[in-house]
């Protein structure tokens, strides 16, 4: 045994005592694990080999586990953010689809409609929708009126067609026009 190995042996013994007292730093513990994992373990310290090899393995696992935990957390966070982004995009997409669907519906019924106000033309169907609907409602009313008027005209004409006397015809025409 040379001086160095003797020094190392004494140093290791101190560290072992310190270890069992719970006073070793992480660096010192790693020194012990390295020592007992090596080939040149002093025969006087051989009895501690199994213990420190085991402790050394456990420490590695913990280190790996914490690494793994960090990786897992990051992965989970990433997945959560990705899922949230997907939900938000889906909601925005549905909202836009509904908006486009509304536009498509309007266009399918009123496409081609427009308003000119004081020389300015407005084509936006959404903006002019109330005006279009009011105009079409008014048109229905006019159509009914025109229909009724046609019926009246037809009836009057039938009456006049059946009056052959000139004087009476003129009288009836006057009555109808008053």
């Amino acid at each position: 045994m040379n001086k160095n190995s003797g020094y190392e042996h004494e140093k290791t013994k101190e560290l072992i005592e310190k270890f069992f007292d719970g006073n070793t730093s992480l660096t010192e513990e790693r020194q012990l694990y390295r020592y007992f994992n090596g080939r040149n373990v002093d025969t006087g310290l051989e009895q501690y080999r199994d213990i420190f090899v085991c402790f050394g393995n456990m420490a590695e696992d913990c280190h790996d586990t914490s690494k793994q935990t960090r990786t897992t957390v990051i992965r989970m966070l990433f997945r959560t953010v990705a899922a949230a982004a997907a939900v938000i995009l889906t909601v925005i997409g549905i909202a836009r689809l509904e908006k486009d669907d509304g536009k498509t519906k309007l266009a399918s019924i009123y496409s081609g409609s427009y308003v000119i106000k004081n020389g300015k033309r407005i084509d936006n169907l959404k903006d002019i929708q109330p005006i279009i609907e009011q105009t079409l409602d008014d048109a229905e009313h006019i159509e009914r009126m025109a229909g009724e008027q046609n019926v009246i005209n037809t009836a009057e004409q039938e009456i006049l067609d059946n009056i052959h006397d000139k004087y009476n015809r003129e009288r009836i025409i006057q009555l109808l026009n008053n």
Partner: protein
Amino acid sequence: MNNRIVIILVLTFCCVLHTYGQNKLDEMVEQYSITGPSTFTSAVERDPKTRKVIKVVKKLSISDRDIPKFRNAFKTVTTGNLTETVSEDKTVMLLTEENKRNNRIYMLTFRTYHRSTFLHDGNITVIIKYN
């Protein structure tokens, strides 16, 4: 041969005359919508399934001084049925025309003050219903 030419010319003239009144009114409405100080609405109603045009409704407000011009245009239409309803303060002129392609209704309304010559609040509505 000469007779044939005359007949063709007469028929052509009649066809032109037939559409003249109606076209004149349509042209006046279109022109006025662009140049006049007015509000013009062109509403198109379509079949939502086929997108085919069912009805076109045009509504035009006209200024007081232009009412006589449109009134005369109504009276010069030689085809269709024209009725004029005059009440205390309002006149309604209704012109209806039917053909194979479409039915048309033209309506001119304006107000008069106690049947005076002062005319105001003129409006024209054109309804084209496609068969």
